[in-house]
């Protein structure tokens, strides 16, 4: 009894410290990194973080435009041209259109699940921006489990897809949800295992530390050959499957399932789904870049590097530009793949994930382990 009373006392005592709560908020919110304890720096850092978030979102607007333009060029079209210069504002127009559309929900849909799946996906996507490194010491948060954290927040996708598909009360949605969940689960595991090789080398989950190791000792894509190269291919492949991009967009195969689990979503909900898809793709591309292609490293280290290049490597702006270039090359690559390949069949694809990619990833991990063992020895 006495402890209960003291608990209440403590709560009441805590209310008196209201002036302090803002600083504590900044200090304790997971996504904001604070170096030092003083308020000014805290405010600067949080502003920087906010700027980074804005930057990412802007990029998210830019990426679809690039994709559409590239795709159109590959198909012999011109792409968006009317809104803004080169159709740059096309996506903003699209968002505005989606926002002003009528918000419909099927009468037989399960309201709770229908909304929850959208919230879960959106929240997890936004959360995953946190630990992404943009340059040395430039990240939303320098958390020690960064990579694991991204996987953790992404792991909500399968249930969210399944829930959304089920809650729509439509057979297309349900089947699409099933397919999405199955595909996500099937490709999540080889993806994680292929990442383990990188972690063995970096000895950290911290994305900054991973990039720093590549900056010092060389990019992972050519280290522990061919273990990490295999891991890179597997990771690239699995991340394409994870993001359900064409040609792996089996859950939403238009010819079969209309729009898959998103069939019944419209209006702003559909806008969020688009945002989530693109940001998911974007984060995965950044992960590929960070894990295997040196992240913000300008060029891989080699002997006899000229001085100006070494200075450039240390320059944060150069690093920032470098990673952006890599990311947009990745976007270009993804678009290229999208326009080039036809869609897979669901059973073959799942089977391929479990029976080929998983053993291959284990093999790559074994090779990396052997290298690491030799290195330690």
């Amino acid at each position: 009894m006495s402890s209960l009373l003291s608990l209440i006392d403590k709560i009441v005592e805590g209310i008196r410290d209201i002036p302090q709560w803002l600083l504590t908020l900044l200090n304790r919110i997971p996504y904001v990194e604070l170096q030092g304890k003083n308020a000014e720096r805290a405010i600067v850092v949080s502003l920087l973080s906010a700027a980074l978030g804005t930057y990412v979102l802007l990029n998210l607007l830019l990426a679809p435009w690039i994709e559409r333009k590239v795709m159109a060029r590959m198909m012999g079209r011109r792409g968006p041209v009317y809104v803004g210069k080169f159709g740059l504002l096309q996506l903003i127009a699209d968002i505005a259109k989606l926002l002003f559309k009528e918000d419909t929900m099927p009468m037989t849909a399960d309201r709770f699940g229908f909304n929850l799946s959208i919230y879960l996906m959106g929240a997890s996507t936004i959360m995953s921006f946190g630990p992404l490194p943009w340059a040395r010491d430039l990240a939303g948060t320098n958390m020690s489990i960064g990579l694991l954290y991204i996987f953790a927040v992404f792991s909500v996708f399968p249930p969210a897809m399944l829930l959304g598909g089920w809650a729509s009360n439509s057979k297309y949605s349900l089947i699409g949800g099933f397919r999405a969940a199955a595909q996500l689960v099937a490709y999540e595991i080889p993806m994680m295992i292929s990442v383990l090789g990188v972690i063995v080398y970096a000895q950290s989950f911290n994305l900054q530390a991973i990039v720093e190791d590549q900056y010092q000792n060389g990019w992972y894509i050519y280290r522990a050959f061919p273990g990490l190269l295999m891991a890179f291919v597997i990771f690239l492949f699995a991340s394409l499957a994870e993001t359900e991009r064409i040609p792996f967009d089996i859950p939403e195969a238009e010819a079969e399932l209309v729009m898959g689990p998103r069939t019944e979503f419209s209006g702003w909900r559909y806008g969020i789904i688009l945002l989530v898809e693109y940001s998911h793709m974007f984060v995965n591309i950044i992960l590929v870049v960070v894990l295997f292609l040196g992240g913000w490293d300008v060029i891989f280290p080699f002997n006899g590097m000229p001085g100006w290049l070494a200075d450039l490597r240390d320059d944060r702006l150069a690093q920032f530009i470098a990673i952006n270039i890599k990311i947009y090359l990745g976007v270009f690559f993804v678009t290229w793949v999208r326009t080039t390949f036809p869609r897979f069949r669901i059973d073959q694809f799942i089977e391929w994930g479990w029976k080929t990619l998983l053993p291959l990833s284990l093999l790559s991990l074994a090779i990396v382990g052997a290298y690491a063992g030799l290195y330690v020895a």
Partner: protein
Amino acid sequence: MVVPLEYFLILSSALFSIGVFGVITQRNAVRILIAVELIINAANINFVAFASYNPVGDISGWIFALFIIAVAAGEAAIGLAIFINVFRNYGEIDVGHLFTLREV
């Protein structure tokens, strides 16, 4: 300490009670399993909390929590497999109707 230990204790005991309540009231086997997962999580919270509040800095409780999560995953997999099999054999998984063990 910023957050007192009592919060976690109350959270875990409440979660545990809710889990037990679920186990004793629910008739759908999947829901019973859900309630069991709640109980396991309640225990896990205690493990992690006591490890975090350990003045010596021993984090064995976290490791225990990790192991418990892994074992719980296996338990859930087997339990659900059993339920699928039960459903296949009896056409339902309502434990109120599955009393083959009872004396007739």
